[in-house]
């Protein structure tokens, strides 16, 4: 090396060797070696870049460092001496740097240049560059140990790659030598990494391949948006084509690429590759442009509400239009009406979806609450949420926050035990509260489950007797006992805490949930935890309904609850001797007649239909006069005036503009149960 001072290849070889030592050193945990080699490598890097000439000192340092690296593999021998020698070399390397900059003014310039360039190419957070890499391996590339596949894999790790292979040089099969490499590649890489990072991948193969890397897109949006350079310019830039040729071709006004190939100026491959580049960057810029526009839009809630109302009016108007169109029997009018119908339905779905928000907005609030509360109570609690993407109407979500807050407070205060206690019980010292939401037909089910102490039913019983809510000695079912928890002012907590224990929580929970026409269900086992299940209807959502008729009124039963429909004749009724039950495939199903339930007068028709619905895993029948059919139902609230309406959960507007009521099958079934119990 000393003899052949200008041998670039040799310097590069040394550099590569050092790089390998550094890399493998780091890989196997010899951090010292890798750190040291890095210093030496720096020195040679300067040589490689022409910043310092090869001098005797450099070669000395190089040889000395080889000795040291050898020694470092055997760290037991003369540790102290090694360290000193190492330091000396590092110092020597440091010395080399300033001296060289004095020697030649040109290298100084280069150094400055280098100082300036890094910030431009340096990795910028989040900013993505697109590089064009032209990789032309020499025919004996593989023979010399290059692994093309590995290189591509490495590139793919950096970012999105588009690769175009040039196959023009592959000879006919007779002349093909299997161990030769005939292909070359153009690679388009979009990455946030710097040019140097890409260069590093090719560092071991630089010798036997031509590699050029250029930045073709720097991540900033140009004013002309998604457009990218014309094909011709790309090719000129790549050096595949001269400007003169391009101008010639352009004069003849055909597809530029086609012309080039036709005239034999450029290979098909090269044109193809340039086209891919064009497409890649265009897509990229388009996507970027798109992302900028596709941000969220904040709109006041009233505006969304107003939109929904207006759309509602439009739907009604459209129903009338359809009716009139059909009466007129004018094909042209009918087709317009149908088109309007389709558009308005789309519009309505869209307007509705604007009001729906994910429940995760509420869930995320509780994470903080759980943290703070558990700290205050010296408990360890983890909140796990599931189904945050479940969408509910905005107003429902707002009104759910308070009850959920109460429930979670209860879980932490009464449910989860202190860490020590939990350990004694053989539980994980960290308690878990699971908060989950999922769709179930026309309802959303929210589960709040803790793995804490659970509810002590005996304590509840004692307390209930103390408070006079329960007579001693009276047998009471578990469900009834759980219901006592919801009595105003009921609490089994012995002392008040700042968080709960006053007994105001549970009845508020129940009230709030019932105001949403939902239900609360408590299940608990002493020692293993409590689970509260809230069933919340998706108000304002569109549901599939089954339209039925009783008397002259139309009603809607949510189709999700409907199991089947069977016929009921007056004779059938006689057979059961006045008991309202029917046998379906061997199972006895109780039923209730809506005419009785709603206290309608008048003769019941001879043939009626029983709509079998499933409520809380039980089958019950609802007797109606007639089943009309499926109906897309937009749920409308009946408002505060009718909030006590029994068995009705809402209303919907039919095509003819009249209102049909939506039946609350759960309530109807529950009232039926209590009736049969009382009998």
């Amino acid at each position, binding site marked *: 090396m000393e003899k052949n001072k200008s041998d670039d290849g040799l310097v590069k070889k040394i550099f590569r060797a050092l790089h390998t030592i550094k890399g493998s050193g780091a890989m196997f945990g010899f951090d010292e070696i890798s750190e040291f080699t890095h210093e030496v490598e720096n020195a040679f890097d300067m040589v490689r870049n022409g910043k310092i000439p090869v001098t005797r000192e450099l070669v000395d340092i190089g040889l000395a460092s080889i000795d040291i690296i050898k020694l470092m593999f055997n760290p037991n021998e003369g540790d102290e001496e090694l360290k000193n020698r190492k330091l000396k070399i590092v110092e020597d390397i440091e010395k080399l740097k300033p001296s060289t900059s004095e020697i030649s003014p040109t290298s100084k310039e280069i150094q400055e240049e280098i100082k300036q360039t890094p910030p431009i190419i340096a990795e910028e957070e989040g900013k993505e560059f697109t590089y064009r890499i032209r990789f032309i391996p020499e025919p004996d590339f593989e023979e010399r140990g290059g692994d093309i596949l590995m290189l591509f894999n490495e590139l793919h790790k950096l970012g999105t790659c588009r690769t175009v292979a040039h196959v023009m040089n592959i000879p006919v099969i007779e002349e093909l030598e299997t161990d030769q490499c005939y292909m070359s590649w153009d690679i388009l890489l979009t990455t946030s990494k710097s040019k140097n990072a890409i260069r590093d991948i090719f560092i071991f193969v630089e010798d036997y391949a031509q590699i050029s890397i250029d930045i073709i897109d720097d991540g900033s949006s140009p004013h002309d948006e998604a457009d990218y350079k014309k094909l011709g310019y790309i090719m000129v830039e790549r050096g595949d084509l001269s400007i003169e040729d391009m101008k010639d071709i352009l004069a003849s006004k055909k597809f530029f690429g086609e012309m080039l190939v036709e005239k034999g100026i450029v290979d098909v491959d090269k044109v193809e590759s340039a086209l891919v580049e064009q497409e890649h960057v265009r897509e990229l810029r388009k996507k970027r442009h798109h992302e900028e526009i596709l941000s969220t839009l904040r709109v006041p809630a009233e505006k969304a509400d107003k939109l929904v109302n207006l759309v509602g009016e439009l739907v009604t108007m459209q129903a009338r239009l359809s009716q009139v169109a059909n009466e007129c029997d004018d094909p042209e009018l009918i087709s317009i009406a149908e088109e309007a119908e389709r558009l308005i339905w789309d519009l309505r779905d869209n307007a509705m979806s604007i009001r729906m928000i994910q429940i995760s907005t509420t869930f995320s609030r509780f994470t903080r609450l759980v943290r703070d509360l558990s700290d205050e109570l010296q408990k360890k609690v983890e909140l796990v949420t599931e189904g945050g993407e479940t969408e509910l109407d905005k107003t429902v979500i707002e009104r759910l926050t308070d009850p959920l807050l109460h429930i979670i407070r209860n879980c932490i205060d009464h449910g989860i035990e202190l860490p020590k206690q939990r350990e004694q019980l053989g539980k994980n010292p960290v308690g878990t509260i699971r908060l989950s939401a999922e769709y179930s037909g026309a309802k959303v089910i929210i589960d709040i489950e803790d793995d804490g102490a659970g509810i002590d039913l005996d304590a509840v019983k004692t307390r209930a007797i103390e408070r006079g809510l329960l007579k001693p000695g009276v047998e009471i079912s578990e469900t009834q006992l759980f219901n006592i928890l919801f009595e105003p002012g009921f609490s089994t907590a012995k002392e008040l805490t700042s968080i709960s224990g006053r007994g105001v929580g549970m009845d508020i929970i129940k009230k709030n949930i019932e105001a949403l026409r939902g239900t609360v269900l408590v299940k608990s086992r002493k020692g293993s935890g409590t689970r509260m299940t809230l069933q919340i209807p998706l108000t304002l959502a569109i549901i599939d309904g089954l339209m039925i008729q009783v008397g002259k009124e139309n009603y809607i039963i949510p189709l999700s609850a409907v199991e089947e429909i069977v016929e009921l004749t007056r004779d059938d009724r006689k057979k059961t001797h006045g008991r309202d039950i029917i046998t379906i495939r061997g199972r006895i199903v109780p039923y209730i007649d809506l005419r009785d*339930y709603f206290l*309608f007068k008048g003769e019941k028709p001879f043939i009626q239909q029983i709509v079998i619905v499933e409520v809380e895993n039980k089958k019950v029948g609802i007797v109606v006069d007639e089943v009309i059919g499926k109906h897309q139902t937009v749920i409308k609230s009946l408002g505060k005036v009718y909030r*006590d309406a029994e068995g009705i959960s809402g209303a919907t507007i039919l095509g003819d503009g009249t209102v049909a009521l939506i039946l609350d099958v759960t309530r109807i079934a529950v009232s039926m149960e209590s009736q049969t119990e009382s009998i």
Partner: protein
Amino acid sequence: MDETPIMDTNQYLSFILDKEIFAIEISRVREVLEYSRVTKVPKSPDFLCGVINLRGRVVPVVDMRLKFGMTKTDQTIDTCIIIVEIKIDDELTVLGAMVDSVREVIELEMHEIEPPPRIGTHLDTSFINGMGKKNNEFIIILDINKVFSLSELTIVNNSQSQVQELSGDIGTTSEMQEKSL
């Protein structure tokens, strides 16, 4: 109850219930509709005659005659539903008030309104804001917020008393055929 709106507006919409003239502040009135099909909500108080579709919105309708203890409204060509905006629990609510007929918008100056009489009327005077006099006619000015306060609307309903007659009357009127008490 806030009396100030009386000072602000002096325009009233007058309507007829059982041959008597009533009036409500015009600012509370959103629109007046002809009688349309009302869907009865089962198991609700008698005076709540049901719900109508107001351009895609479900609006409850109150039979004003039953509300004031008169006999129930018979459907005529003049029967109207006055859509009013009231506040229930600080929430703006839209309600329909079914009346025999709507007359006109009248102006009443302060001096034309007298406080409600203690006697001489079969109405609960707490609903009344004052008595107006115009062209030798007495006009009962209603406090619409009190008439439709929630406690008034959701009186515990004895469901036995709301038997609905469904025995084959024709079309639109059948919904209104409730058995009077």
